[in-house]
């Protein structure tokens, strides 16, 4: 029975993988990630790749919403910036090494993040949400313009390149999976580590009460801007992966729908925790697939009945948001915590 985690020095307290379930859980998860592509079908790999990309983006959003307490409804725009930067780079220099493209896309998205983080000092909460939402519409509008169409493809979207590593083109889902997952794991570890640093703790202080944080000597503006930059960078990286993963992209892929889906993944999973985005993204992206299976089973593959699948999916999606907010506002990660707490204290207390 675990009665508590006894730590004898500071370094143990700061450790991320402080207790054995976490250590072995990480190892098990990594092994599962590595083995999965050899056992899964192409369709499952497609879903897994999509989930991996979204996890990167939602973890980034978590830095902003969950840790810094700044609301954003416009992160789809940074996703778009990342994706279109990748496309544009490959348009100019077709054989760029994918990791270089990834880094450049990330940096460009971070720059846009700083730009759209500028209102964050003046406005907070809802006003910031609408400011970022406006930014999302404006960036998509720019992408659709004719004078950028050579690089972005304009309204009609554009085909995207495949990643080429030393002459080996990543075409199959399996190969793409092995490109996405390491990036995802590294970015997850980075996010987890970020909040052990002075900078990360400063962000948390800003979330809890920004004026108090300022009085304690934290420069609000620069920290908020950096937080914006980091979260935008994550979304930019996700966008770059997205461009490599899918054969084509459209501006409307990155609209309000995506921005809100990102926020919803975060809320469903639980804010201010690294596990939250993982759980939330898996749940939110898998439910529509589950619904498809159920609908196929109920209707027996009847084509006319398929017309109501999409509205029902929308309704279910909305109900999930509302349901989580009413019944489990801390997200899935809270259920997970309760479960482990229950196990560790069983049979003495609930």
């Amino acid at each position, binding site marked *: 029975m675990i009665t508590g985690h006894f730590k004898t020095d500071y370094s143990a307290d700061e450790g991320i993988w402080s207790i054995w379930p976490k250590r072995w859980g990480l190892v098990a998860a990594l092994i599962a990630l590595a083995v999965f592509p050899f056992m899964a079908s192409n369709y499952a790999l497609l879903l897994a790749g999509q989930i991996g990309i979204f996890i990167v983006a939602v973890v980034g959003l978590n830095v902003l919403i969950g840790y810094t307490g700044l609301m954003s409804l416009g992160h789809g725009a940074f996703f778009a910036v990342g994706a279109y930067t990748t496309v544009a780079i490959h348009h100019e220099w077709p054989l760029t090494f994918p990791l270089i493209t990834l880094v450049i896309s990330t940096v460009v998205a971070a720059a846009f993040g700083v730009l759209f983080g500028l*209102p964050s000092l*003046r*406005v907070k909460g809802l006003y910031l949400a*609408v*400011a970022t939402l*406006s930014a999302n519409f404006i960036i998509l509008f720019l992408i659709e313009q004719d004078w950028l169409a050579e690089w972005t493809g304009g309204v009609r979207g554009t085909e995207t390149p495949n990643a080429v590593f030393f002459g080996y083109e990543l075409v199959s889902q399996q190969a793409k999976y092995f490109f996405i997952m390491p990036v995802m794991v590294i970015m997850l570890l980075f996010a987890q580590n970020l909040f052990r640093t002075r900078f990360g703790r400063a962000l948390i202080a800003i979330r809890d009460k920004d004026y*108090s944080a300022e009085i304690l000597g934290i420069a609000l503006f620069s920290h908020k801007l950096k937080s914006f930059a980091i979260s935008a960078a994550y979304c930019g990286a996700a966008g770059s992966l997205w461009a490599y993963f899918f054969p084509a992209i459209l501006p409307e892929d990155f609209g309000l729908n995506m921005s809100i889906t990102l926020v919803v993944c975060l809320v469903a999973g639980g804010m201010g925790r690294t596990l939250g985005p993982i759980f939330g993204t898996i749940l939110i992206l898998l439910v529509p697939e589950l619904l498809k299976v159920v609908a196929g089973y109920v209707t027996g593959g009847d084509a006319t009945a398929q017309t109501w699948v999409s*509205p029902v999916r929308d309704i279910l999606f909305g109900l999930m*948001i509302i349901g989580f*907010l009413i019944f489990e506002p801390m997200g899935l990660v809270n259920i997970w915590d309760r479960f482990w707490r229950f196990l560790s204290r069983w049979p003495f207390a609930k």
Partner: protein
Amino acid sequence: MGQFIQYMINGVISGSLLALIALGIVAVFKATKVVNFAHGHLILFGAYFYFTFSVVLPEAAFMPGWVSSWEPAWLLAYAGDAPMFSPRAAIASWVSDLPRILLGLVGALAANAVLALIIERLVMRPLLGQSAFAMILSTVGLIWVLEGSAGLIWTAEAEQVPALGPNFPIRFQLFDQNLFLFSGSLVNLLVALLLFATLMLVLRYTRSGVAIRATAEDQSTAYAMGINVPKVFSTAWLVASTTGAVAGAILASRNGLSPAIGLFGLSVLAVVLMGGLDSFAGVLIASMLVGILSSMAQWKLGGGVAEIVPYVAVLVVILIRPHGFMGQEEIERI
């Protein structure tokens, strides 16, 4: 100059419509401190209800024939052989549509009111006392629920609905320029401004208006003073849904009925923030400004730019005045 005035008029007309929509968002925010992201979809439902009661229902087998098309002898005599697009023909066809327009409006108002009460009771009430973030997100969730339900109930085709007023072109001269506008737009303008003014008067002079203002000022004090705050909340939602139903009917008759109406509500949200969330006057100013700016942008820069005008405008305004034109500044305690 003539062109300028022409687009100015168009801008004022669309601005009044923005104001009518914004009214609902402000009313709900003032009373409940919730910013309703789903207001556009409430309007969408209003539009669909209007369609149901004014187009689908009158054509049902059990309805008497005069509902769908009322043609008493004197009306036929009045219409006579008036040429198409003449005021006389337009008024005659409007009068013959009148029964179903009225049925549509009454039905849409009632149905939307019921819908709003259900939303308020099932979604917003359980979230009382939660953070603003949770409230906002739950209205975002509502967007999907409403959109999906609308898709299930009504097929997502663009449909035509009867306009609220007789529709004929009015031509006149100003500064030696030929200008023209549709009388239907004029009726819409009047309806919107009338509703806006009525609501302002109601808020100022009636008991429930005072209750709403008191709740806006301070919820717990209002509660302590014997104001039924939950009832104020439902009243606010009722106001939003009924004005929304009228706005939906107008939008549907102007641009045709389609799910895009829901998205229109989001740009109105930008307008509301620009004016200041809790100020009717500020929102009226912002609506007019955005309406005129959009129509100018349409004239000089094309339709694509006009769509993002509200968003650019709100960004600029928020950067200069973080609480909009006339919004009350929040006082934070540390």
